[in-house]
């Protein structure tokens, strides 16, 4: 591509306008901009590499030990090394699963309402409320659940309460992503279905949703990844314990973030510090796994054209 065509050149004569370079200062500015963009990218990559390096170098070897994946911290004091994170991994996964189980149907149906049904004031209100929910800081969501669950009903702080707070954070993410995906389904397909005499609800359930399926799943996985790393609700609603606990409705339930938080208070103990980084790495890996799964679904699950 030529970069200079001398538009409006007044140079007379039969000589062809030279296809030379733009003026020096313009070239320099262009080069400076290029360098700045590369620098910006490098600046963004530095913390990423640094963080990952820190976590892996401090906690990586713990994950190589099989007991990390099989044992809990039961009976292991902060001074002692050993034990595993299985109790916390389990807690994190259980809470995430319950969160998804509650949030996904509500969110997907809300998105269906907004895209397929919603018109008028009520739809505007719903969309607006989803926006508000998007903006709610996790600590505020946690406070709300605390105000309901503990202050008002007088229940204990249990795993289920954490899930409820996470539901509030997950709903808007899934609503928005599902909405986008539903909007991408061509109207022609809905019309084709209607023209076959298929009722609207079956059109949505059997034609629209399957077409958008992989995109919706991707949104759910990314939303779940986001929610899994949340710590604020755990601090307020989900105290840590060192043993395996799978009951969502009674007793404390340990999770990876609270495990990190626990060991953080023992920075003087090398064993605890190692455990802390190990738990952090485990959490990153879990979230990364969900992210990758989401992207794979998006890439390979989408309908071939």
């Amino acid at each position, binding site marked *: 591509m030529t970069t200079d065509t001398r538009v409006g050149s007044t140079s007379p004569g039969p000589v062809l306008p030279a296809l030379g370079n733009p003026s020096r200062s313009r070239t320099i500015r262009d080069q400076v901009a*290029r360098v700045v963009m590369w620098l910006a990218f490098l600046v963004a990559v530095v913390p990423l590499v640094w963080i990952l390096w*820190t976590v892996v170098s401090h906690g990586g070897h713990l994950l190589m030990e099989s007991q990390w994946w099989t044992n809990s911290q039961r009976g292991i004091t902060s001074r002692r090394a050993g034990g595993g994170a299985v109790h916390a991994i389990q807690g994190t996964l259980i809470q995430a699963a319950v969160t998804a189980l509650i949030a996904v149907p509500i969110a997907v*149906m809300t998105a269906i309402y907004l895209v397929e049904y919603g018109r008028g004031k009520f739809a505007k209100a*719903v969309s607006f409320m989803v926006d508000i929910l998007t903006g709610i800081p996790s600590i505020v969501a946690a406070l709300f659940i605390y105000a309901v669950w503990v202050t*008002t009903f007088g229940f204990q702080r249990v795993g289920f309460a954490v899930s409820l707070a996470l539901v509030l954070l997950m709903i808007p993410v899934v609503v928005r*992503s599902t909405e*986008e995906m539903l909007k991408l389904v061509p109207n022609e397909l809905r019309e084709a279905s209607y023209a076959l005499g298929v009722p609207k609800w079956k059109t949505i359930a059997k034609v629209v949703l399957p077409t958008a399926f992989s995109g919706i799943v991707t949104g759910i996985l990314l939303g779940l990844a986001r929610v899994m790393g949340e710590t604020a609700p755990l601090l307020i609603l989900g105290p840590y314990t060192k043993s395996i606990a799978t009951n969502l409705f009674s007793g404390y339930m340990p999770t990876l973030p609270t495990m990190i938080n626990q060991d953080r208070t023992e920075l003087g103990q090398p064993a605890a510090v190692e455990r802390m980084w190990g738990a952090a790495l485990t959490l990153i890996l879990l979230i990364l796994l969900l992210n990758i799964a989401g992207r794979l679904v998006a890439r390979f699950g989408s309908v071939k054209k």
Partner: protein
Amino acid sequence: MSTITGVTAADETPTPTSGSPLGGDAAGTGRLGDRLFGGLATGAGGLVVALVTLIGVFLLWQAIPALAHNEASFLTSREWSVGGDHPRFGIVELLWTTVASSLIAMALAVPVGVGVALFITQYAPRWLSRPAASLVDLLAAVPSIVYGLWGVLTFRAAVRPVEDFLQSKLGWFPLFAKTGISGGTIFFIGIVLAIMVLPIVTALSREVFAQTPVAHKEGALALGATRWEMIRTSVLPFGRPGVISASMLALGRALGETIAVTFIVSTLSPGNPWSWSLFNGGETFASRIANNAAEFDSPQKTGAFIAAGLVLFVLTFVVNAIARIVIERRKAFTE
């Protein structure tokens, strides 16, 4: 993924036969399946409305008695003693720390984020642009608790010399006044927050930059513009509303970020003198609440923290609302 901007190809001009989905119409009928399914969908929407309303009402309901007993001015006092018969608490310090650290984060994250987005969409060689985008997205996959750990235990030491330098050279300026805080300063919180919201700014900016009509870009290039001139005259103006809304959403995240900040902040002792310095310590709304989760034992104390949470809620809401308005205006503009 464009979940947050809400702007996609699907927002293009609707025509009767394609474009806008077929909602709110007579495609549904009175049959049972339609009534059930439509009812479920509407019900889910209603549930969301009810939830948000409930959150507001509940928080207010819990906060008001505590505020009524408050013997200090909630909005202007720097005190924070929520227990006992004479609670005195105010948010001015929390507000300052929260806003100042978030603004620092924006000042750093927006230029870098836009730069990265331009790099990915306009400068990176083809083979690099996808991996580069994934790499930056990876920053978003790091949970905030890990940022907190890394910030306190590793990154802090690297920023200290910078802070010392600024304090010694620019100490005469109130914002950079010397404080003697060695732990997490407002400045430092800002830097960590900047790294945390960088992927948000980048992802959304990247998306709008990529949507710049080819005709605009080719138009500029055909006039003999250099690549930078092309970006300045066509990509940046087209993407500006997108960048603004991305920044607002990032700001909302920064304001509400809890755990990383909680790990980093240096709590100030009561009665310390007021300082405008960015090298002072202090707590944000979120960290104050999180740090004192153990204190939620009486309605009075809980109510005070909830009141602080409400202010944070309003703050993030305003910021998000501005983002939304900018997006809507852009949509109206492109349609």
